[in-house]
C-alpha cells in the first residue's frame, strides 16, 4: 500500500535543488518557531494552572521585549526574502542561447512547437542538460504551465507571451499540469515532459515527422502575407527593416523606447498602431484574426532568426510571391 506514497516530489531540474534548499530551511525554521510557541503555551498552561493559593501576577508589558520580538523576526524575514528573490530572478531569467519551444495553450490541451519544426500535443520531449526556454501564449483563457519536478510554474495568458525556462537533470517522465483553473476539463489538461539522454533525444528527433524549421515556416508566411513588400532591407521600405531588430531598443514615434522582444513583435503584427517606430507612418493593417497563434509563433521565430547569423538570409526573404493582402494607404 505504501510503495506509491511519496512525501517529497522528484527533483529533476537545476532549479529544483535551489527551491528545495530554501523550503527545507523554512521548514526547520518554522518547525522551531512552532515548537517554541507550543511548548510555551503548554508549559504556562500547566505551570500556572489555577489552584488554591495561587494568584496571577499582573504584568503590564515590556517595550524592550516587544521590540525584540519584532526586530528579530524582521531580520529573519529579510534573509528569507532575499534568498527567495534570488531564486525567483534565476527562474525568471532564461539563459542566453537556450533552445526555444513555443507553447500554445487552449481549452484543454498543450500544443508545442520545436524550433526544428516538430510539433507535439500534451507531450514535451527534451534532452537532459540543455537549457529550454518556453515562449507561451493562450488561445482562449488563462492557463498555467506547471512541472512540479522542475519546480517551475508560469501562467499562460491570451494576447501576450510569457516565458519560463528549465534545464532538466534526470532522464524520466514528469507530470505537466495546468495550474490555473480553465473550465470543465481543467483537470484533464495534463501531459508529460519526457527528459531523454542526448543520444535518445537525437533518435527521437530523427524519428518524428517534422515540418520545416519554425523560422522557415515563418519566412514563408512573411512572404505569403505580404509583409516583405514593406519590410524591406533597402531604404524604400514603407515599414522598418527587420534585419537585426530583435532584442534591440527601438525608438518610437512618440519618443518612447521599447525593447523589440517577442511581445513587441506580436503586438506589432496584431495591433500595428500601438507602438509605431520613429520615422514611419501608422499605415500597417492589423493581422488580428488572420494569423493563428501557431503562425504568429512562426513569424516571431523568423524575425528572431534575422538577428542571428545562421538561418535565412535576406535575399531569401526578398524573393516573395505576389502580396495577398491589400495595402491600406
Amino acid at each position, binding site marked *: 500500500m505504501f510503495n506509491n506514497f511519496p512525501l517529497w516530489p522528484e527533483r529533476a531540474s537545476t532549479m529544483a535543488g535551489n527551491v528545495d534548499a530554501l523550503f527545507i530551511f523554512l521548514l526547520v525554521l518554522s518547525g522551531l518557531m512552532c515548537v517554541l510557541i507550543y511548548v510555551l503555551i503548554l508549559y504556562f498552561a500547566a505551570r500556572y494552572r489555577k489552584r488554591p493559593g495561587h494568584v496571577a501576577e499582573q504584568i503590564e508589558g515590556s517595550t524592550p521585549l516587544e521590540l525584540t520580538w519584532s526586530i528579530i523576526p524582521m531580520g529573519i524575514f529579510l534573509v528569507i526574502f532575499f534568498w527567495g528573490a534570488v531564486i525567483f530572478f534565476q527562474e525568471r531569467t532564461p539563459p542566453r542561447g537556450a533552445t526555444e519551444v513555443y507553447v500554445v495553450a487552449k481549452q484543454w490541451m498543450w500544443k508545442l512547437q520545436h524550433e526544428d519544426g516538430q510539433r507535439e500535443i500534451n507531450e514535451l520531449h527534451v534532452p537532459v542538460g540543455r537549457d529550454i526556454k518556453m515562449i507561451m501564449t493562450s488561445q482562449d483563457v488563462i492557463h498555467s504551465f506547471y512541472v512540479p519536478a522542475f519546480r517551475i510554474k508560469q501562467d499562460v495568458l491570451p494576447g501576450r507571451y510569457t516565458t519560463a525556462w528549465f534545464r532538466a537533470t534526470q532522464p524520466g517522465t514528469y507530470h505537466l499540469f495546468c*495550474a490555473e483553473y480553465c473550465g470543465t476539463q481543467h483537470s484533464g489538461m495534463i501531459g508529460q515532459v519526457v527528459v531523454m539522454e542526448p543520444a535518445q533525444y537525437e533518435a527521437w528527433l530523427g524519428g518524428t515527422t517534422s515540418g520545416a524549421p519554425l523560422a522557415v515556416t515563418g519566412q514563408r508566411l512573411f512572404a505569403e502575407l505580404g509583409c516583405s513588400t514593406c519590410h524591406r532591407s533597402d531604404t524604400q521600405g514603407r515599414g522598418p527593416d527587420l534585419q537585426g531588430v530583435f532584442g534591440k531598443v527601438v525608438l518610437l514615434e512618440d519618443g518612447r523606447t521599447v525593447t523589440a522582444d517577442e511581445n513587441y513583435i506580436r503586438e506589432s503584427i496584431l495591433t500595428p498602431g500601438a507602438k509605431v517606430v520613429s520615422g514611419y507612418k501608422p499605415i500597417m493593417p492589423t493581422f488580428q484574426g488572420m494569423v493563428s497563434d501557431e503562425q504568429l509563433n512562426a513569424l516571431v521565430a523568423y524575425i528572431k532568426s534575422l538577428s542571428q547569423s545562421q538561418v535565412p538570409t535576406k535575399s531569401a526573404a526578398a524573393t516573395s510571391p505576389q502580396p495577398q493582402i491589400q495595402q491600406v494607404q
Partner: protein
Amino acid sequence: MSTTAIAVAEHENYLNKEYGIKSWLLTTDHKRIALLYLMSITFFFFIGGFFALLIRLELLTPAGDLVQADTYNKLFTMHGMVMVFFFLIPVVPATLGNFLVPMMIGAKDLAFPRINLLSWYLYMIGGVLIMHCMLTGGVDTGWTFYTPYSTAFTNTKIIEAGLAAFVAGFSSIFTGLNFIVTVHRMRAPGMTWSRLPLFIWSQYATSIIMILGTPVIAITIVLVAAERLFHLGIFDPKLGGDPLLFQHLFWFYSHPAVYIMILPSMGIISEIIPCFSRKRIFGYKFVALSSIGIAVLGFLVWAHHMFVAGMSVYAALVFSFLSFLVAIPSAIKIFNWTATMYKGSISYQTPMLYAFGFLGLFTIGGLTGLFLASLGIDVHVTDTYFVVAHFHYIMVGGVLMGYLGGMHFWWPKISGRMYPEGWGRLAALIVFIGFNLTFFPQFILGYLGMPRRYWDYSHMPEFQILNVLSTAGSTILGVGYLLPMVYFLWSMRYGKLAPDNPWNAAGLEWKTSSPPTTYNFDETPVVDFEAYDYEHIPDREVPGES
C-alpha cells in the same frame, strides 16, 4: 455549585420583551439583529460545509466518479462564494460584533439602528440571490472569477452571483460604517481609547477595511458584468482589455478581505486569554496598534497572489517584501497572547480550549504564509493544495476557532443559559483533531505538486493516500461543527440559567444582566478602570472548574 448562579428568574430582557415574528423582523435592537444574523449565517455555513463534504468525497478516489466535472467545478465555486461572502466576512462582526460593540463601550445601541437592520436585509437579499443562483445552475469559475474565462467563456450565472456578492457587500459596508461611528461617538464616560477592549479595536480596524475595500470589489463586479453584457473591452485581450487588470482589482479587495475575517477573531482571543489567565493582557498598546497595522499594511500586499501571473519581476519583489512586513503585527499578537499566560492563573474551560486551538492553528497558518511570500517557493506551490491548506489554516483554523471560542464565551450573555461544559470541551477537541487531519495532508499534497481545483487525478494515483486522510478528517470536522449547534439549541431550553458574569470576567458587557435588557444598561455606566482589570476582580470559582 457556585453561589453566584442564583437563578435570575425571567427578568425582562431583550428576548422576552416582545414576541411574534414582527417584533423580530422589524427590530432595531442590535442584539436581536445579531441573532437574526446568527441564524442566517449558520444556515449558510452548513450549505458551504455540505459542498465541502461533497468535494472531499469526490477526491476520495482518483477518478472523477461521484459527480460530473461541471458539477465539481460548481461545487468548489459555490463553496468558496458562500463561505467567503456569506459566512467568513460577516460571521464575527455581524453576530458577536453586533451584539457586543455597543455593550462593551457602554452604549444603548449602535449609532444607526435602522441602518443595522437594513444591512441584515441586504445580506438576506444577497443570500436569496446566491441561493437562487445555486438552485438554477450555479457558477463554475471559482470564487476568484478570473477573466477572460468569466467574461467571455463560461455560460454559467456570473451576473447573478456577482449581484449577490455586490448586494452583500453593501451590508458589510453599512456594518463597518455603523461600528466606526459608534466607537467614535457613543463611548460611555471614562471609556477612553486606551481603555477600549481589544475586541473593539479589532472591530474598528476591520470596519476600516470594510468601508475602504468593499467598494473596489463592487466596481470590479460591475466591470465584469459590463464586459459580459456589452462586450466592453476591459479584461478580455480579444476586446483590447487586460486580464491582469482584473486580478489586481479583485485581489485589492480580496486580500484585505482575509483580514476582515481574521481580525475580529483575533479580538475574541484577546478577550478570552486574559479572562482565563486572570491577568491583564500583555502589551495592550502593541496588540491594539498591531490591528491597525494589519489593516493598513493589508492593503499593500494584494499582488502576492500574482507572482506567476505574468507580472514584472520588480513588482513581484516589492509585493514579496511587503508581505513579509505584514507578518510582523501578526507575530506580535501571538507573542503577546503567549506572554499573557506567563504567571497567570489559568483554567481550561471551552473558550480557552478554542483559544489554544486558535494559537496552534493560526501559528501554522501564519508560518506557511512566509513560504508563500517567499518568491522562489511561491512559484512552485502557488495554485496547489499548499495554498489551499494555508488559507484554510487561517480562515477555518483561525477564524472559526476564534468564532466558536467567542460563541462559548458569550453564550451565557446571549441566551441567558449555560452550555454543557463537558460537551463543549469534547467538541473543541474533535474540531482540533478533525481540522488537522483534514488540512495538514494538503500541505504535503501541495509540495508534491497537486494543483487546486482538480476534479480527477487518475493519472496521479500517488496523491490518493493523502487525499483519503484529508477526506477522513473532514467527516470528523463535520461532527465537531454539528455538536455545538446541537447543544447550544439544547441549552436554550434545558441549560442552567446563567449568572450575569459566569466567568468572573472584566468588561462592561458582564456588568449587565444575562440576557441584557433592551437598552443594555439601566443607567449609563461610568468607566473608571482599565481594560482587563483582573487585578481588582476578586477571584472566585467559575463554572467548569474542578
